[in-house]
């Protein structure tokens, strides 16, 4: 009887752990991963493999030899960064460029801040944006490699993303695009931008498993829809329509998987809404008026930097106050 455990309440604990949450995010990413591999074939597998392996390996090496602390690769967060980074790159990206992206994501954006929980910016996005600036040619090469399943891209779209085409040629250039193609996987773009359905499946899974709350994602999508809706209503010849803006580019991937990153998003629901509206606005400003065709990554990074401020002002509603 003297070996009774005595410790303060509560005496039970949820089964949900950091590891199980992160693993759920990886599971939620699987549909998008499968679609991208089917579509882009071996070269996409290579990008994914290099990205995930280097992220995990780098985190292992850094925690073990540089920080000499507990090894944290068991929490699956490095795997998420690896998958997200890969899904943000064209399938034609050379392996060594992918590796540099992983070094920036894990080595710079994550570990120098102190690892999971401490980083200000989403590691995968930092990696991607770094590559976009340093290797613009590789990062905008959307030629389609041979996939595992046969599919017929509409003529004329093979070499570019719909957003890129719209930027170059205006609304008229994307007139023939079929939204059903965007929903499934018939449009050009980086791997993770292929299939809205696959990404939305992941979103549903995350919500059902209560991994994330819907506020950030929904407020981003709503803002994009409203903003583009207003401009499109005023001048449909100049501005792309809301559905086009929702389904193309990295919007779904970014709003579902990257803006909702626990560490780099606000804690409270209202904070999440402000954060989401900000991302939506900045994204649309870049798409309509900026130099780049796509602005989700920049928008998330910019809003990441104001999260501490949002957290300072947005608190949960307290009982009896």
């Amino acid at each position, binding site marked *: 009887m003297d070996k009774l455990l005595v410790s303060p309440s*509560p005496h039970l604990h949820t089964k949900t752990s950091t590891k199980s949450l992160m693993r759920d995010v990886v599971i939620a990413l699987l549909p998008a991963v499968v679609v991208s591999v089917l579509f882009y074939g071996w070269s996409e597998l290579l990008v994914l493999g290099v990205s995930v392996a280097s992220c995990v390996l780098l985190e292992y090496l850094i925690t073990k030899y540089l920080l000499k602390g507990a090894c944290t690769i068991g929490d699956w967060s490095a795997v998420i960064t690896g998958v997200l980074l890969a899904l943000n790159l064209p399938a034609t990206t050379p392996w060594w460029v992918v590796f540099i992206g992983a070094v920036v994501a894990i080595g710079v954006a994550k570990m120098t801040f102190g690892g999971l929980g401490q980083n200000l910016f989403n590691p995968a996005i930092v990696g991607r944006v770094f590559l976009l600036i340093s290797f613009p040619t590789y990062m905008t090469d959307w030629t389609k490699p041979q996939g595992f399943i046969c599919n017929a891209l509409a003529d004329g779209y093979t070499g570019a993303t719909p957003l890129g085409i719209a930027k170059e040629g205006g609304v008229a250039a994307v007139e023939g695009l079929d939204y059903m193609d965007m929903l499934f996987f018939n449009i050009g773009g980086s791997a993770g931008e292929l299939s809205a359905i696959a990404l939305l499946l992941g979103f549903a899974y995350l919500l059902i498993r209560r991994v994330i709350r819907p506020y950030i994602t929904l407020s981003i999508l709503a803002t994009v829809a409203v903003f583009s809706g207003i401009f499109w209503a005023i001048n449909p010849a100049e501005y792309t329509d809301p559905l086009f803006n929702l389904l193309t580019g990295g919007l779904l991937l970014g709003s579902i998987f990257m803006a909702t990153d626990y560490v780099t998003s606000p*804690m409270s629901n209202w904070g999440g809404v402000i954060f989401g509206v900000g991302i939506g606005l900045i994204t649309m400003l870049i798409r309509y008026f900026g130099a780049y065709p796509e602005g989700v990554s920049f928008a998330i990074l910019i809003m990441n930097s104001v999260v501490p401020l949002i957290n300072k002002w947005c608190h949960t509603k307290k*009982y009896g106050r």
Partner: protein
Amino acid sequence: MMKTFSIGGIHPSDSKISKDCKIEVLPVPSKVFISVAQHLGAPATPIVKAGDQVKVGQVIAEPAGFISAYVHSSVSGTVKSVGPRKDLAGNNMTHIEIDVEGDEWIEGVDLTDTLVTAIPEDNKAILDKIKMCGVVGLGGATFPAHVKLCPPPGKKADCLILNGAECEPYLTSDYRIMLERSKEIVVGAAIMKQVLGGCPAVIGIEENKPEAIKAMTAAVAELQSTAKGYEGISVMTLKKKYPQGGEKQLIDAVMGRQVKSMGLPIDVGAVVQNVATSLAVYEAVQKNIPLITNVMTITGDCLPMEKQHNYKFRIGMPLSYIAEVAGGVPAEAAKIISGGPMMGKAIANMDATTVKGSSSLLYLTAEQTVRGVESACIRCGKCAEACPMGLEPFLLQKYARNSMMDELEENAIQDCIECGCCLYSCPANIPLLDIIRLAKGDVIKIIRGRGQR
């Protein structure tokens, strides 16, 4: 729409394994040790000494202050000693040791099963009886019942809430009395609401106890049609969510009102009493029986069905004795809890004895209860989402680790009800409540100190 409290809350598994075990009466052991600290407030002062003969129900310790309570002997026999003995946390407290001889009760108690439905008219006499019978709140806090039933001048009760939520996993004692003593509980409610000036009384029960809802609703209906003084009593079905039975949460759920920080329920017109307290009030007022018994649950996933029990115990029975009668402590038990798994206390000493508020012996296995290794906060916000007081535990723990007292107070650490939702929910195994509990004590001391100056 079923009602519940508006902020936070969690849904741990129900685990009401012993819910179908009828209440059994525990045989009286040969010796009891009755603690003088069975209530919130000052420990009572013993008025017996070694060698005295006592009867069942006789006062053996008197209140030592306004917030204190009478303690009665639960057995008849000879006082063997009055002195320190370890309680379940292992701290020394004065206990009165009595050698049991026979089972002779004091004069005037009504031990029959006859239901007494006529409510005495004199409220003062009722309150006196509740006080003299040592009735305390049995929902966890063991606050002297008569004090709560006398609102301070200028305050009025708008609603008496009977807490039948039993939101802690595993516990089934309230459930059993709601099934087996439904009418007595309703009579107790009618008595308390009369004392409070005739406000309505609402019996709040969670949806996962349909049988109890049925039994209590039937009891209310029957008493309303056969006796006087039972109007305005109703049963309210609440959604299942922990901590529904928290006083502040229950008031929010039932009345839609929130008690201000550092305020009392009566400030918003609420008086909350547990269903077990209502039963004790019935026994005290209608039967003259002092509070010397209560019902406790013996349970745990590692106990076979035949060793699960709901026992009517007398105060002063050693826990080890009860465990023995129930079939022994299971080998897999790593931790034994007195109370629920969320807010109960881990028992350090099985030689400790039952008190008025004892509610369980809950056996948890190592696998169930040993916490995982703490890792870094991933800022998931799950602790804040779970907190029924709307606090931000991740922030409080950070401030607490750095002793930032002003920030802690600004962020309302003093409002923490120690429900454990935050620690339960944290995927990074951060001991949030452990840290918050300590710092909260310090902050409340600072606030009190300021009030005195």
